[in-house]
């Protein structure tokens, strides 16, 4: 999702330096450091339990870190109470004030900061129109639908015009179609507000559509951070490669012989001499990674893989074929036009340029 870069605004960037957190003996965050530029939409992506929510709560001040610092703009905030950090936090289950109307929910923070009534009314109604919840202002949260409640939670953050927006998986409670719509709305919203946003999710589709920068976390450590395309097309380690991409990348173990030829467990060979060169010692273990969409059908003569279709997921737009190539399980993403029947034998090949190579879990660049 391309958005034009915003000129230097007043919205400060976020700096996290060597942040660590241990709880009951367990190391949850291990000296993380990263930056979020002004107005940038940064996504923290990772499986549940990887510490991404804890990190977000530490930035918000709802939890204290065991070490490291957090700064918004130039000021260090890790010693400040949440209310002094000028951040907004959109909770997973919205955390709306059940005893207040939507209008009061939206205007609550302004009231606390002593903003005059007239201005509160103006800003609240403006945001309400923007989020199409203008005619729910005097309802109570219980009377709203899930989507509406989610928008009120969002509105509550927007009204404040905070230095930093924090999102804790705000879409996870919505149904699929509503979730895709809200993704687009969030992205459009970011485009208009140009505020710095830190967004936590385990849903990679959200990460890819929303994130201008994605930080992949696992077990409290940053696996990789970069633009969505970068993360998808040049995963720096096995974890990122496996985690990003649906369905998951195929992995094939293999051993490099003296002449740059890779012998894989399925008996398939790859001539990598020209690409690997001297960068991998002979006889070392390598892992080959092939994205399902990179596998294409070909004539049996120059087929690199041949297998029978064990299971076919037909999604209409295309279909995922689960193949058994003599014990090696592969998944290929083939166009829906030529449907594959169960048990059918097909031949596949891959453009060597698009193959990913990993040695001891680290990526080896082919070019």
């Amino acid at each position, binding site marked *: 999702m391309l958005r034009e870069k915003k000129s230097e605004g007043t919205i400060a960037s976020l700096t996290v330096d060597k942040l660590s957190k241990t709880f009951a003996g367990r190391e949850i965050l291990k000296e993380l450091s990263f930056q979020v530029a002004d107005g940038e939409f940064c996504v923290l992506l990772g499986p549940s339990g990887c510490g991404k929510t804890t990190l977000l709560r530490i930035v918000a001040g709802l939890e204290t870190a065991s070490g490291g610092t957090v700064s918004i703009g130039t000021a260090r905030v890790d010693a400040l109470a949440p*209310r002094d950090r000028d951040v907004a936090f959109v909770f997973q*289950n919205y955390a709306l*004030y059940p005893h207040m109307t939507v209008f009061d929910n939206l205007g609550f923070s302004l009231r606390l900061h002593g903003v005059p009534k007239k201005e509160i009314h103006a800003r609240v109604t403006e945001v309400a129109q923007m989020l199409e919840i203008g005619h729910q202002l005097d309802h109570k949260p219980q009377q709203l639908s899930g989507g509406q409640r989610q928008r009120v939670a969002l509105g509550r953050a927007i009204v404040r015009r905070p230095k930093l927006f924090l999102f804790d998986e705000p879409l996870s409670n919505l149904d699929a179609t509503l979730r895709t719509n809200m993704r687009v709305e969030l992205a459009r919203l970011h485009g208009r507000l140009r505020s710095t946003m830190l967004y936590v999710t385990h849903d990679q589709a959200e990460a890819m559509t929303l994130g201008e920068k994605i930080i992949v976390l696992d077990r409290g450590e940053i696996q990789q951070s970069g633009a969505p395309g970068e993360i998808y097309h040049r995963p720096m380690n096995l974890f990122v490669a496996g985690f990003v991409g649906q369905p998951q990348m195929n992995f094939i173990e293999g051993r490099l012989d003296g002449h740059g030829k890779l012998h894989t467990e399925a008996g398939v060979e790859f001539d990598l001499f020209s690409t690997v060169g001297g960068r991998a010692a002979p006889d070392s273990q390598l892992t080959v990674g092939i994205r399902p969409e990179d596998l294409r059908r070909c004539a049996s003569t120059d087929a690199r893989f041949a297998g029978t279709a064990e299971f076919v997921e037909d999604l209409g737009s295309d279909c995922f074929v689960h193949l058994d190539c003599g014990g090696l399980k592969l998944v290929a993403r083939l166009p829906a036009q030529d449907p594959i029947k169960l048990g059918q034998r097909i031949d596949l090949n891959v453009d060597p340029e698009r193959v990913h190579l990993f040695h001891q879990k680290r990526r080896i660049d082919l070019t």
Partner: protein
Amino acid sequence: MRRIAFAGAVVAIGAFTLLPFLWFVSASWKSATEINSIPPVLWPSFHWDHYRAAIAEHGLLHYIANSVIVATATTLLSIAIAALAGFALARFRLPWGRFYLMLLLALSMFPQIAIAGPIWRLLNFLGWLNSYQGIVAAYIALSLPFAVWILATFFQELPYDIEEAALIDGCSRWQALRLVVLPLAAPGLFTAAILVFIHAWNEFFFALIILTYPARQTLPVGIALFPGEYTMPWGEIAAASTIATLPLVALTLIFQRRIVQGLSAGAVKG
């Protein structure tokens, strides 16, 4: 079949709780000879001079007034203090938080009779004997343990993220408590309030030795003044008890839904 059994249970419970009390209330409308007539007279002859005597001669109304003042002040202050403590114990991860809760529970186990003497000396030292603040301070101490327990368990069940949203929106802990937590905790506060109120309304021994000015004496002491050295005016005591219990019954009738809802910790779904 289940319907009948259930209806039977309802009637049984109603009878078990109400009949003994109704028998005593009926004594308030019986003449002196009817009250302890042998064999007992089941239906009273409905005359009202016991009520007149209880109110006019024994000054029942000012005992009730004193009890209302003492019980209300105790409830308001006790719940205010207990809410603060309960909130802190539920929200801040204090290493000694659990110890403090257990200490409070232990304190409530100590027989009040035994600490009546030292409390009397304390109030005497403070010059608070025969004063509202004296008896109220003692009652707050007596009721705090179970008030804090109820409120701490209740706050702990309240969904935390609503409060965190308030902190983010700019509340201090105090503002978060006042503007967001207390409105949501109303049922819990109510339950603790009713229990504290009833405890203060019923307490006898402390009031006996602390409040000796007629102008300050509360209801249980007032009713203990009804009997003569050898005479037991059942009629007047029954009348006084009926009048004294009505406000409480009315109170509980109005708020009974809130009470039960409060006790079921975590009843508020975020």
